[in-house]
């Protein structure tokens, strides 16, 4: 049975990341300070939302957490285990226990690979035997609401929502302690989006998964997240229980953001 440790708190401290970009031969290179000292804690089994306007650094933060991007400074630990920090080599992505799901379920699946192979890729790399892999794939598929025979099919045979389930299965099969979802439902039809949101709630309840959920959609945060962090210009400007932040925003950007959301 797929399990997570259910005890690991994630702590990020003062994470910084600056991008340097050359602007052709003669112009001065410009820099983008994408993360300017971001700190937060996520408790076990918590669903932690990150919102903020386009370009505020959400995806950069996600990529730094999973190890797809190197931070400039700061530290990150998971359940007391240090993943990066001053004076140490960064723990490589496969050993972090953090998996990521991206926005576009079409682009993130190899069209030539059977779904079962795609899901088991990480397990194969880690040296697990074939029969054990197949069992684990079947189990994970049912966890995300797909039938086991999906393993023999190719991505084009699935709808957008089903593909996103496959991507989530591929992440979960590694038994991560944390799932980082970057705009994971933004490209889906709203009738399908709700299915995925409910599935994430189920996964938290059933296997104790902790989730960092990045979105630009406040109403999704309201539905899904226990806690929310609002980012603006590479900084965390506000953080708290979702209902508290939404009902009583303290920061001026958060106030503008929340008052701009159209409501049913």
């Amino acid at each position, binding site marked *: 049975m797929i399990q997570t440790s259910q005890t690991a708190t994630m702590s990020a401290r003062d994470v910084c990341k600056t991008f340097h970009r050359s602007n052709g031969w003669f112009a001065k290179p410009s820099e983008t300070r994408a993360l300017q000292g971001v700190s937060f804690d996520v408790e076990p089994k918590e669903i932690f939302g990150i919102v903020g*306007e*386009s370009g505020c650094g959400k995806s950069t933060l996600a990529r730094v957490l999973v190890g797809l991007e190197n931070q400039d400074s700061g530290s990150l630990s998971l359940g007391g285990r240090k993943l990066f920090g001053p004076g140490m080599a960064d723990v490589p992505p496969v050993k972090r226990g953090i998996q990521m799901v991206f926005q576009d379920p079409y682009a993130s699946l190899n069209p030539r690979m059977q779904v079962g192979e795609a899901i088991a890729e990480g397990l194969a790399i880690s040296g697990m035997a074939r029969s054990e892999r197949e069992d684990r794939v079947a189990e994970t598929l049912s966890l995300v609401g797909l039938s086991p025979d999906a393993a023999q099919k190719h991505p084009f045979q699935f*709808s*957008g*929502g*089903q593909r996103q389930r496959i991507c989530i299965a591929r992440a979960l099969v590694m038994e991560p302690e944390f799932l980082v979802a970057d705009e994971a439902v933004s490209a889906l*039809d*709203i*009738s*399908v*989006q*709700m*299915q995925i*949101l*409910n599935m994430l*709630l189920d996964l938290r309840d059933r296997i104790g998964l902790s989730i960092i959920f990045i979105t*630009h*959609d*406040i*109403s*999704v945060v*309201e*539905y*899904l997240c226990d806690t929310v962090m609002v980012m603006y210009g590479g900084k965390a400007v506000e953080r708290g229980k979702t*209902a508290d932040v*939404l009902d009583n925003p303290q920061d001026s950007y958060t106030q*503008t*953001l929340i008052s*701009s*959301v*159209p*409501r*049913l």
Partner: protein
Amino acid sequence: MTLSSDTRPADGTIAGQNAAPVLSARNLSLYIREGRNRIRIVSDVSFEIAAGEFFALVGESGSGKTMIARSIMRLLPASMLEIEGDLEFCGKSLTSLPENRMRALRGGAISMIFQEPMTSLDPLMPVGRQIEETLELHSDLNRRQRAERIETLLTDVRFAEPAKVAAMFPHELSGGMRQRAMIAMALANNPQLLIADEPTTALDVTIQREVMEIIQRLRRKYGLSVLFISHDLSLVHQYAERVGVLYGGVLMEAGPERDVIGRSAHPYTQALLNCAPGRRVAGERRRGIGGTVPSPRDWAPGCRFRDRCERADAACANSEIPVKDLSPEWRAKCLRPTE
């Protein structure tokens, strides 16, 4: 031409009961040609937009929203898209209009803005020059008048320094600024109808609100009718006066916003509203809708929503589904709408 815009009062208070609608679609069906096949992607859709009215078409992806917009603008060649039924603009048939007359309307009395402004802005031309080109095409303003008009337009969409923006290239603008520049361009020739296809979907909510407020203000100022296309029910709730709900190319429910969104009668509209996320009280879940949106290649006879509908029974699969009038201006295509 009777379509000139100077016959309209400036205050926008012309939505009279008897005035011809600015746009009317009657039994509109659209077919895509794929080789020797013809695939129906929109079936028998009828709606009207009155002068000065904000009408929203909502639907999930593939429901046919963009195709309806493009058929009005005739942005697709007849070799690709076949139009059945009728589209009328201010009482005149658009479907039988020759292409040269259509060209005069496009960007003139009818104009359109898109989700991704970069697709319709020329990256190699300053914003002001692009607006000037459509003015040259559709008006007989002289050079000085055109410059004044460009300044007014850019001011109308809330640019504090219109002259500076006019000289800028699209890539120098942010997403929201580009969308505003595109609205300025769309409004250059005083259109009577603005078609907006998901104009704010790519924007942050704070900028979305800015853009929506601009559209609202210009609508009041110039008596503009708006066909607004969106998948966002809360946005539609906030701004639309009347709403049409599309599913699988079929108009499932249409009427005043307060009816369609406020107390919807059609099972699909109700289910869709139940998919809108929001606060959960005491841990309760929204049910959403099981299954997925069907593709036009899989459409069977009967109601297109029946695989996912909780009220469906055998009759929904067999019969032609009737359109029921729930009030003189509110209707639903369903065998069992909520009365």
